[in-house]
């Protein structure tokens, strides 16, 4: 399992691996928003957490179809399926590698981008914590979606349609946690609910992903 994690990370940072793609997309979306809504600082401060959460979600979506598609195309996935690694473990590790290469960097740069959007100082910590709790769920749900669409040509669009609705609860609780943190009305409840979603995803989705991979490999 460790070997697979290292391989996926090595592939992500080498040429054509797509590391930084999601990050650059995140940056561009956040920079574009003030051009769209105008430079009114009070409006920007109000929408900053929501914009950052939506942008992070779209940036995570960008690299999802690579999770299994590349391994499927070059035949590695069939070889991994016959290897002693359980496919459930493969799905889990690949989601984790996806999180390290997209979710983690997004979480770390989000506060810096919050500065561009004139986010209130109280919101920074809540944004960081909510993204840290929520983005692993995005990767795990995405890995399931990628497993569903792995054999399809141009499966990326279908993948987005399948996965985005599943992202809704994480998005709602994530943005709500930041808003409540700023208001001082208690962010613990949305953070805990989001944590429960993340843990539930990691407990159940590797099995679902492995099951659909087996069907897709037939």
């Amino acid at each position, binding site marked *: 399992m460790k*070997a697979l994690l290292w391989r996926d990370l090595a592939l992500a940072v080498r040429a054509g691996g797509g590391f930084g793609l999601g990050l650059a997309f995140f940056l561009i979306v956040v920079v574009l928003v003030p051009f769209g809504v105008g430079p009114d600082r009070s409006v920007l401060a109000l929408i900053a957490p929501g914009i950052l959460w939506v942008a992070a979600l779209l940036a995570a979506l960008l690299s999802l179809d690579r999770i299994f598609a590349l*391994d499927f195309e070059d*035949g590695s996935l*069939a*070889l991994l*399926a*016959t290897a002693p690694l359980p496919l459930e473990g493969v799905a889990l590790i690949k989601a984790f590698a996806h999180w390290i290469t997209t979710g983690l960097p997004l979480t770390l740069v989000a506060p810096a981008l919050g500065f561009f959007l004139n986010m209130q100082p109280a919101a920074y910590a809540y944004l960081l914590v909510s993204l840290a709790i929520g983005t692993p769920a995005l990767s795990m749900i995405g890995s399931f979606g990628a497993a569903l669409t792995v054999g399809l040509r141009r499966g990326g669009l279908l993948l987005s349609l399948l996965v985005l609705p599943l992202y809704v609860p994480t998005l709602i609780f994530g943005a709500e946690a930041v808003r409540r943190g700023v208001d001082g009305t208690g962010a613990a409840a949305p953070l805990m609910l989001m944590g429960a979603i993340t843990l539930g995803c990691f407990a159940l989705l590797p099995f679902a992903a492995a099951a659909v991979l087996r069907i897709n490999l037939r």
Partner: protein
Amino acid sequence: MLQVRDLRCARGGVPVLEGVTFDLNAGEALILRGPNGVGKTTLLRTLAGLQPPLDGTVDYPEATGAYASHADGIKTALTVTENLTFWAQVYGLTVPDTVFAAFDLDGLRSRAAGTLSAGQKRRLGLARLGVIGRKVLFLDEPTVSLDAFSVRNFAGWMRDVHLAQGGCAVIATHIDLGLDVPTLDLTPFVAQADATGGSDEAFL
């Protein structure tokens, strides 16, 4: 070591082969032959466990089988050594130094796999079989894009290393590998046109 009884397998929901029966002992290999589309790949995938058989049994000791497909499963951004090391680690082993010489990869160790020629990539794909230490191999057209020298080299490894150490192999190929092993023509096992049972209906 490998027992196949009355195996019936399907491709895309259509039964292609039925009644396939054979035995292999340690140190034996079997060459599969038959025209394109007869079901060689389907049979090998079923034997390797990638798809369930419609009927019949495949029996070999647990955790001894390995499959090699048309695709080599190598990562172009990794070097030759990194590719082999990855597969060795997946199987909990280390790369034996002899494997580079056996598959004529000695001068290519630190080359990125993306810069290899088609034949060299194939040799790297086959070298994977030398590092994973599996006894029962299911090989699908292992000699595609290999030159005559590499084919002899691979046949030599198969005979002198793999089979000599008590392994066995089922190999689908169209060329003469120069191995002194039995051949199984799949044409007589083609499923009847009206054969049913391959549908996924129960699942859907």
